[in-house]
């Protein structure tokens, strides 16, 4: 499991260098063939027995912020990159730019808020990043417009086999994909670490265009809404209940026969699984299945609580189940007759 290292790297959409470099080094260590495409996707190839072209995708990028203005006092105004949970931004610790300048997201003090403001989360234009400077000139020495900002959040293992960190969406997928490539299975597949999923499935589209897969397998961190006030039918996925198989989301109607086959593989191998039961959201499968002549796709996800915030929580058991299931699905699809 490479999660501690992976989640502590920065990789906001469009600026995935740190994650990509880490993955490149790991691929060299395990002696896996790979190349980087024009958008920055890492395309690794595990050679082996082959019936069809399989593309296993996990996205490297995470939601974050980008610097758009430095004001006269040296405070930084910013924009969201990807669908960030704006409720949670206030008073978070962040790292700005390549030099990881520490900062905190601030706003006016609670005493100064109007009655209406107190009950609500502050919109992004009322927030700023404070890096401890007190002039525009000083800030400009450290930060430029266009610098990316990511949350600072340590990787922690806690409770009953749980993990906490930032960017579990989708470093869990990246970690599992690295493990799969390390196994040197006698089953052919491309492991694709994609860019810019969070801003519209962009990397996956060009990767699928190059590879023309027959089957796309997307490894994701997905929403778990298993909170006490949420009705059972709205939970989407439940943490600790196993690998989540997508049925339909905003980007893909999954081929139900393929989904049921994957469910059967899980049952045959005693792997815990559940269905992802929300029609909302979308992931790289949406781009992959519509590219060129089209492809079958499945999404196998790890439920993450508090997703798109600085502190996601996931279960190591779910991680194991997704890893085992994906391995079996690849082997089953490439086995000889």
């Amino acid at each position: 499991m490479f999660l501690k290292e992976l989640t502590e790297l920065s990789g906001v959409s469009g600026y995935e260098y740190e994650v990509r470099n880490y993955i490149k080094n790991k691929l060299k260590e395990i002696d896996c063939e790979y190349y980087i495409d024009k958008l920055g996707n890492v395309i690794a190839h595990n050679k082996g027995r082959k019936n069809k072209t399989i593309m296993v995708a996990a996205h490297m990028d995470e939601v974050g912020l980008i610097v758009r203005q430095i004001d006269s006092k040296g405070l930084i105004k910013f924009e969201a990159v990807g669908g960030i949970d704006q409720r949670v931004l206030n008073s978070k610790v962040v790292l700005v730019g390549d030099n990881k300048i520490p900062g905190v997201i601030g706003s006016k003090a609670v005493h100064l808020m109007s009655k209406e403001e107190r009950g609500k989360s502050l919109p992004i234009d009322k927030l700023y990043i404070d890096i401890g400077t007190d002039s525009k000139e000083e800030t400009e020495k450290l930060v430029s417009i266009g610098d990316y900002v990511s949350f600072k959040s340590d990787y922690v293992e806690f409770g009953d086999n749980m993990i906490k960190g930032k960017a579990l969406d989708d470093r869990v997928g990246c970690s599992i994909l690295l493990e799969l490539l390390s196994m040197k299975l006698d089953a052919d597949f491309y492991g694709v670490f994609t860019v810019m999923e969070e801003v519209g499935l962009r990397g996956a589209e060009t990767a699928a265009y190059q590879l023309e897969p027959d089957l796309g397998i997307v490894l994701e961190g997905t929403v778990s809404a298993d909170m006490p006030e949420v009705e059972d039918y709205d939970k989407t996925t439940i943490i600790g209940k196993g690998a989540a198989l997508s049925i339909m989301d905003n980007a893909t109607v999954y081929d139900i026969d393929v989904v049921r086959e994957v469910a059967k593989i899980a049952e045959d191998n005693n792997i815990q699984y559940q269905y992802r039961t929300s029609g909302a959201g979308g992931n790289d499968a949406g781009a992959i299945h519509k590219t060129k002549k089209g492809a079958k796709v499945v999404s196998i996800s790890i439920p993450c609580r508090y997703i798109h915030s600085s502190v996601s929580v996931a279960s190591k058991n779910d991680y194991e189940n997704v890893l085992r299931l994906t391995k079996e699905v690849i082997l089953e699809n490439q086995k000889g007759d």
Partner: protein
Amino acid sequence: MFNSELMKKLSDCFGPSGREKYIRELIIDEIKDYVDEISTDPLGNLIARKKGSGKKIMFSAHMDQIGLIVTHVDEKGFLRFTNVGGLKAKNLLGLHMVFANGLEGVICQEELKDKEKLTMGKLFLDVGVTDKEFVKQNFRVGDMCVFKSQYYETEDCVICKAADDRIGCYILIEALKNHPNTDNDVYYVFSVQEEVGCRGAKTAGYSINPDLAIAVDVTATGDTPDEIIMEVKLDGGAAIKIKDNSLIVHPEVKDMLTYLSEKNNIKYQYEILEFGGTDAGPIHLSREGVPSGVISIPTRNLHTSGEIFSKKDVEECIKLVRAAAGH
């Protein structure tokens, strides 16, 4: 002569977006003796071909219909669901739905004080079964259902579910049975997943790589009380699209369809739709681009269990498809 038997079969066949197996099989049965080649692509598009050495023309009508998908089966045996395609909660109350296995359910709501606040999350399906074990065995997360309603025909019109776009399928089937004598290489595509974003047409357009594409799909009308301001009306003839949200029809394609209508005495009207899109949207952006147009069937009460179109308009559309195939 309107082929009522065929239209009724098409309308009654189960096939929400992503679950087009039965409707595809029905259409294959209907057309297999009339075409030179027939294939199904990875997403499930049905691609039929009348071979020729000339211009490559692609017609596309979508097989899928709007529906609902089960997201949760609760302990008491009630089903929660979400929409597949453009359906709003307030239009669903009390409707009768049917699943692929023939089992049915009716849409009920939780008690609500403010009816305006009705959302999909407050609705559930009651399948009329008190044996919870039976519900568990027969209804699964991922199962889809569609409207159940009676096919009905008058002298002038048809009222049925899924006219969007089974009437387009009907038109292509009738046109290809009478395929004109031509050198054109003509592809009749029955596409999947139009209602969730014209997904099938995207991959079919890529595979076929046509010189000209024409979608055949329903459009809204402006001829009912309190309707949108729109020129299109029932019995106004085949509607030649000028634009919608997904496409500005290539001027040469619009002119060609107009010319063919006038030359062949086909009744036509122009259509500007201020919302929505069709298969021609993704097709015209495929590869290096494809000049594309749409022949639309004026249809009232769209996306409900009783869509209404005129049989005369359908005849005009068939004539125009044939003329375009042979041009």
